């Protein structure tokens, strides 16, 4: 299990290994290469998910018209497209983006390690996810088409091919998602072990950068919540292919059980994707405010509380599903109480801005833009968490708008913020700030113009997952809202073009990045951009917490974590010895 190479040997010894193309770039065990692979995979899958969004929105604004570049969308196709959009965006875009790419790249660098604890397992995690993505994409091409039961795959719709007409599409969907779960469970082993065991001397838990904390909490939440759903996926697959009746009532099964299993995972999953997005914001906002993160420990405890609470709220997705109505009251209370830890996180970030010296770089714009939009997602959660009101809003576009307003600010705005911020470290070159700001403005404005109208459509009672609503008289007023949302979606998609240009242009032509272009404190900025194989040329020692910005007593307005204090501590050589080598 333990890797045979002790890190002492690898640190500092820069024998850049000649591994050949395959071992250096494809089956690499270097966490930085793997992170970039995750990044590439998630951006590629985002193109698929974005294309699905385009088809969905076009159909909703101008029902049953010719969609440029595709053709007509049929009802069955529509259901398949919404299913794939959700599945791809959550499991194959958001997770590889904020966990796979940033977690892999930053955890070892931020704790001062030369790599993940189990590099080969890390490689396997990525390639497992790759297989999962391939299986999901393969499901597009099987007879009867891909899964069409929604990303929640509610039984019995998903449990018997006869109900949707989908045969292997749904089976492959289950297999792909199960493989994805396995991949991130393996990834979690590395997150936890690296963050706990490979910290350099001085890097106490209370000096961990917030990003590491959030990735750690996310990995643990994922591990603790996904097991029952893996069991459920197994049972659902047996229902489909062997003919058992776990979730079908004809032989005593229960469809509600699937919903319990799904949402016991589903709610924590939101935080799995969301918390690392917050982690990215919490790294960036202090840097560009030149202020310490306000109330570090309060935030950590807040996030842990949110994580614990997330395990006792799942039935808020099921208020009107036929559970015992008496259960709704306790679940409603716990759900609304979740606003308390998130208020801690949001208020702390807001107060961090107060009195700062704010520089609105692209990274900072995406971070504060994500924060500003997340607030909408946060407050609208109260509407849905209140069982009495959920009777009306459940299953409408209000829900759609709400979860896009929580996941997109954290995973996508946060992820973009992280990319603009760490791109110099990842690729050794700076991104273009002008294009970055254009990208931000387009994304921010269009995003809000997509989903504010959808809140209103939800208030008007517009059910989601409706192929076209022209037959409903009461939805006539909502139709213009869908047109606005669709035009804004086109803008949102077009708004990503500056990013794509910027990304590839900066890769080859960007200004060479120095070690620490943002004057930031965390350890990844104390090595070359990009970091060499083995990350650091000498062993790191940490002397302070990661957010020592703008201290009036300090010689300059930032104090890197590894910068020795003014009065040097008497350091014995033995203390610099790297630990955690077993």
């Amino acid at each position, binding site marked *: 299990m333990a890797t045979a190479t002790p890190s002492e040997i690898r640190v500092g010894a820069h024998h850049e290994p000649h591994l050949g193309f395959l071992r250096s770039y494809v089956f690499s065990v270097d966490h930085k290469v793997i992170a970039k692979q995750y990044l590439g995979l998630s951006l590629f899958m985002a193109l698929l998910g974005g294309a699905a969004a385009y088809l969905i929105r076009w159909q909703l604004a101008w029902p049953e018209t010719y969609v440029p570049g595709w053709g007509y969308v049929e009802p069955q196709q529509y259901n398949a497209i919404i299913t794939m959009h959700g599945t791809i965006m959550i499991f194959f875009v958001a997770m590889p983006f904020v966990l796979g790419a940033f977690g892999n790249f930053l955890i070892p660098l931020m704790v001062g390690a030369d790599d993940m604890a189990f590099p080969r397992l890390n490689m396997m995690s990525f390639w497992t996810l790759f297989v999962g993505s391939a299986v999901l994409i393969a499901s597009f091409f099987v007879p009867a088409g891909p899964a069409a039961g929604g990303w929640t795959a509610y039984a019995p719709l998903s449990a018997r091919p006869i109900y949707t007409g989908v045969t292997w599409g749904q089976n492959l969907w289950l297999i792909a998602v199960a493989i994805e779960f396995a991949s991130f469970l393996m990834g979690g082993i590395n997150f936890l072990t690296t963050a706990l065991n490979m910290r350099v001397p001085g890097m106490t838990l209370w000096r961990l950068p917030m990003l590491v904390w959030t990735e750690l909490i996310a990995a643990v939440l994922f591990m603790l919540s996904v097991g029952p759903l893996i069991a459920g996926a197994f049972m659902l697959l047996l229902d489909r292919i062997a003919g058992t009746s776990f979730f079908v*009532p004809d032989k005593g099964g229960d*469809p509600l059980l699937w919903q319990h299993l799904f949402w016991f995972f589903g709610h924590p999953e939101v935080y799995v994707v969301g918390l690392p997005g917050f982690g990215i914001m919490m790294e960036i906002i202090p840097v560009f405010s030149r202020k310490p993160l306000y109330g570090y420990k309060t935030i950590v405890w807040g996030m842990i509380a949110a994580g614990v609470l997330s395990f006792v709220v799942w039935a808020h997705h099921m208020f009107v599903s036929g559970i015992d109505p008496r259960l709704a009251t306790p679940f409603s209370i716990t759900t609304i109480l979740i606003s308390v830890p998130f208020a801690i996180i949001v208020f702390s970030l807001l107060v961090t801005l107060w009195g700062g010296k704010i520089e609105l770089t692209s990274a900072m714009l995406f971070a504060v833009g994500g924060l500003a939009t997340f607030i909408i997602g946060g407050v609208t959660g109260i509407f849905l968490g209140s069982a009495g009101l959920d009777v009306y809003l459940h299953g409408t576009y209000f829900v759609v708008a709400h979860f896009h307003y929580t996941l997109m600010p954290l995973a996508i705005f946060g992820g973009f913020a992280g990319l603009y911020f760490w791109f110099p470290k990842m690729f050794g070159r700076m991104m273009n700030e002008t294009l970055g700001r254009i990208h931000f403005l387009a994304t921010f404005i269009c995003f809000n113009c997509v989903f504010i109208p959808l809140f209103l459509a939800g208030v008007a009672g517009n059910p989601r997952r409706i192929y076209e609503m022209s037959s409903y008289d009461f939805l006539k007023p909502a139709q213009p809202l869908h047109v606005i949302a669709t035009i804004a979606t086109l803008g949102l998609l077009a708004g990503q073009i500056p990013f794509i240009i910027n990304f590839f242009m900066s890769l080859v032509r960007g200004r060479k990045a120095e070690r620490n272009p943002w004057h930031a404190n965390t350890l990844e900025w104390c090595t070359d951009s990009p970091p060499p194989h083995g990350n650091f040329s000498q062993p790191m020692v940490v002397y302070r917490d990661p957010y020592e910005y703008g201290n009036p007593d300090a010689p300059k307005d930032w104090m890197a974590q590894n910068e020795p204090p003014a009065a040097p501590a008497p350091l014995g050589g033995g203390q610099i010895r790297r630990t955690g080598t077993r």
Partner: protein
Amino acid sequence: MLTWLPQNVSTFGGDVDHLFHIIYYITGVWFVAAELFLFYCLVRFHKSRQAQPLYARGESSSQAAWVLVPVLVVLMLDLGIDKIGGDVWHRIKLELPPAGDQVHVTGKQFNWEFTYPGPDGKFGTADDQTIENELHVPVGTVVRFELSSKDVIHSFFVPALRLKQDAMPGRTIKGWFEATQPGTYEIACAELCGFGHYGMHGVLTVHTAADYQRWVQSTWGAAKAAAK
């Protein structure tokens, strides 16, 4: 935002709308305050106006209070919302007022079946009538329904009544409503149930008392209806 709500025609719909208003204004104040604070910070403390940032770590209790006191207010408001929302939920889903009229609602791909007990008021007798996609009820009468499904999950959604309840195969779920205004209102399915989900469209007709009698007569015939 609130003007987008469709007309309300049920006795408990007003409570739902009231709850909506309360949460809307409470969260609206917080939302506006937070966004204004954020925007003010970005403008006022932009580096062009700020030479030396304020150094505050937020760790001492007096500094942490700047976060924790607002959080405490959030907590109190949460509990208030819990209380009000809990009462509304209780009224809609937990109290079953005595029935004035009964109907069985069955979802199937892709229709609503409404089964009426007929003039004898009993289900399972010869005069039961099942009508697809048409629900007829008298105004000002408590209607008790029993909801079930023949295949997959559907969701019985009547926006004008502020009523939604999933129809779960293998279960029978009881509920009620009382319409306050005559007219026709639309019924939708609010849970994805297959390729025809979007067309699973019913109509609720709320009759005046006299009108309802006429409908009963035309459906069951004058003689049988008179027996009621």
